């Protein structure tokens, strides 16, 4: 047998000079791997073939709207479905291949890993988009097409693909396909609400027209969406000693305040919804984080009384997540108050409206309510992903229960009786409020009591951890 040929550093250098050293290792790795996958190669060739086909049909029948629809259908499918779906196994594959330990021993952390994967996927999307650009130009010369509008639409699709990829990569941390599906649906519903509130044309009119404020809101939403989902995945694959929580929570609060600033331009309703969604996502994430009571993690919070106070809201883990929940409720409450939602102005003074207060409390309560079940019955589960999965499962069950209660209540004459039985469930209370059947003081108190109970039960159940948390914050 002949010995294998020797490889010299020069040969290694030639083989490995495709990407500069300063590029993120994960980006380089993902690009090398990604460009070889059959899905990318097939998508690229297929897209080019379809573009040529549509152009040929366009030449035969210039100005046909069917050709335009056909042209955009394939671009939309590739950018919004095929490319994001390639991120579905991004993080779970690292876990399954047992490579997370190896990566943890390098200088890469969970965030750089996730960001690298996302950047690589979007770089490939950009490659596909670049391949489409010449056809956009040719379409213009064929006539009956607004080139700038097409270009803006393509940009919107590219950004949308970036957000969708962030969602799939973030959710790919869960190995259970059903759970991934449920979470994707949940987030999808949230984002649909968001973009419905922002008006779908906001981005286009923001660039082409003068609707800059709306463009700003859309950009903030996209930016936070990508950041949230990538951080969501990153924090669930990182070792517990890595603190990604503080940054996530500060970014959510910061962007909420920036969003609130848009209210001065008159976008009150949009601001309320966007700030609510930003804080809502951040709170869900905070309440389902594992609890790393390592002295090393809490060390930066030990410096002075201010940092110790900040730890109650910003330290990693669900325990400070409860503090963060109250802080976010306060911030959102303030935005609602100044937006004139919680109170009404009469003759120069402000009056709180009972039903709206109950609604606000119940909305907050929806986020924290599942903690009662998690910590009452499954508080000792050690799995990092278990809490979030269980949280999602409880939310799905509560949603079903609410739907059932509403349907039953509408068929039973004594509506009030039923609503009183199930009213501690926040979503049922919201349903009752929507029907105008729960706008008195008792319901407000029930909403308040349930919220406090949901926050107290986990802390009571984990007194030992609470003591340890306080001990690490105090010890010098």
């Amino acid at each position, binding site marked *: 047998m002949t*010995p*294998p*040929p*020797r*490889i*010299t*550093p020069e*040969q*290694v*250098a030639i*083989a*490995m000079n495709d990407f500069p*050293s*300063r*590029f993120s*290792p*994960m980006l*380089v*790795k993902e690009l*090398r*791997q990604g460009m*070889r*996958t059959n899905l990318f190669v097939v998508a690229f060739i297929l897209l080019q073939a379809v573009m040529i086909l549509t152009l040929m049909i366009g030449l035969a029948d210039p100005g046909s709207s069917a050709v335009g629809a056909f042209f955009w259908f394939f671009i939309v499918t590739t950018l919004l479905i095929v490319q994001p779906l390639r991120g579905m196994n991004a993080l779970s594959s690292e876990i399954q*291949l*047992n*490579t*997370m*330990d*190896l*990566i*943890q*021993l*390098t*200088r*890469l952390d969970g965030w750089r890993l996730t960001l690298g994967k996302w950047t690589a996927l979007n770089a490939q999307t950009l490659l596909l988009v670049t391949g489409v650009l010449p056809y956009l130009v040719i379409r213009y010369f064929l006539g009956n097409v607004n080139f700038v509008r097409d270009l803006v639409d393509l940009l919107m699709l590219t950004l949308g693909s970036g957000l969708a990829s962030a969602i799939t990569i973030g959710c790919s941390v869960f190995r259970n396909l059903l759970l991934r599906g449920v979470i994707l649906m949940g987030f999808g519903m949230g984002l649909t609400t968001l973009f419905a509130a922002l008006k779908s044309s906001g981005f286009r009119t923001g660039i082409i027209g003068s609707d800059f404020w709306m463009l700003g809101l859309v950009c903030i939403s996209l930016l936070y969406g990508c950041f949230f989902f990538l951080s969501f995945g990153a924090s669930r694959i990182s*070792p517990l*000693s890595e603190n990604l929580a503080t940054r996530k929570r500060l970014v959510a609060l910061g962007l909420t305040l920036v969003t609130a600033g848009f209210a001065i331009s008159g976008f009150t309703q949009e601001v309320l919804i966007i700030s609510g969604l930003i804080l809502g996502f951040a709170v869900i994430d905070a309440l389902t984080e*594992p*609890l*790393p*009571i*390592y*002295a*090393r993690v809490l*060390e*930066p919070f030990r410096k002075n009384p201010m940092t110790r106070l900040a730890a109650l809201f910003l330290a990693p883990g669900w325990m400070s997540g409860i503090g963060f929940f109250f802080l976010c409720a306060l911030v959102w409450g303030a935005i609602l108050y100044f937006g004139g939602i919680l109170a009404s102005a009469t003759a120069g003074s402000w009056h709180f409206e009972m039903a709206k207060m109950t609604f606000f409390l119940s909305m907050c309560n929806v986020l924290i309510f599942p903690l009662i079940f998690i910590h009452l019955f499954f508080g*000792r*589960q*050690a799995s990092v992903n278990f809490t979030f999965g269980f949280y999602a499962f409880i939310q799905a069950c509560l949603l079903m229960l609410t739907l059932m209660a509403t349907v039953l209540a509408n068929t039973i004459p004594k509506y009030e009786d039923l609503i009183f039985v199930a009213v501690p469930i926040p979503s049922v209370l919201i349903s009752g409020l929507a029907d105008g059947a729960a706008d008195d003081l008792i319901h407000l108190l029930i909403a308040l009591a349930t919220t406090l109970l949901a926050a107290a039960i986990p802390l009571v159940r*984990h007194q*030992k*951890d609470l003591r*340890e948390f306080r001990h*690490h914050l105090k*010890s010098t």
Partner: protein
Amino acid sequence: MSDSLPIEVVTGVETVPAPTERTSPAIEVSQLSRWFPGVHAVQDVSFTVERGQVIGFVGANGAGKTTTMRILATLDYPNSGEAKICGFDVVKHPVEVRKRIGWMPDHYGTYSNMTVLEYLDFFARALGYQGQERIDRIAEVLEFTDLTGLAHRLIDQLSKGMGQRLCLGRALIHDPEVLILDEPAAGLDPKARVELKHLIRILSQEGKTVFISSHILSELGEMCDSLLFINQGRIIHHGSAESLRRRSSATALVEVQLAGSIDRLREWAMLAPHVSFKEATKNGGRIEIDSVEGEIISTVLRRMIQDGLPVTDFHIQERKLEDAFIEILGELEASGVPIAS
């Protein structure tokens, strides 16, 4: 979850200590414990490994080997006790420890759609190597692991043995002082085992400390300066292979080959003092002499011949490490200590 968390207080964010780095042992473990809900994986484990030594870590499945190794590799936290690599605490200074260790897990992780060269390049980049230094490190590792001819082959197409060599190469990219290898020979064919053993021997000659776990005791015995036995999370023996053999060898096992029937040997052994018949072999049998002293053994041989046994071969069998290990476990079991399965 809280039950599995460490409670020790750490002072300060990672600052690079340093004073005893060169003189301190390669691995220093002191009263290390790690428990998970319902399981005490590691209990009060203490041992020291000097620089340049090759240490075998032996134990049944679930004995606590991997947990101990993961703590040493900064991939897990101890609940109590401490572990140091080259003088750096694995909990307080994980970054410093990671610079000094090369970790090879039992199930190595590799990627699809990636060549050998790209795999090593990824880890070299991730470890912070840039420019020419990165290129040199990759070339050096490829040559050491003899993967130069496979540099452009996809990892999916590598055999298990080649894959293990690649994984060892990955662990060596940053030229670590201490190598922690968890079952590196598991699932390898004999040829790949010999190759791996050869590489480990070279590494040991280069002065690297190798901490290696395996089920194949005979191989560890040849390779290692000393062996560390763990059972139910506790260290039950620490010493060289020879000391282990001696520890459990109050008796000598002798293989006897006869020209005639084995029954004669059996009958003779029943009557002879200091001797008991153990088992029959193809042309004779094994007898156990209740002493390891040469004088007594030669007396037994003399008496055999005097009594007319047609002996064609008589030699003391070297005690297998596996037997010695099982004897230690037997002693523990007899004294009421539970044994890991």
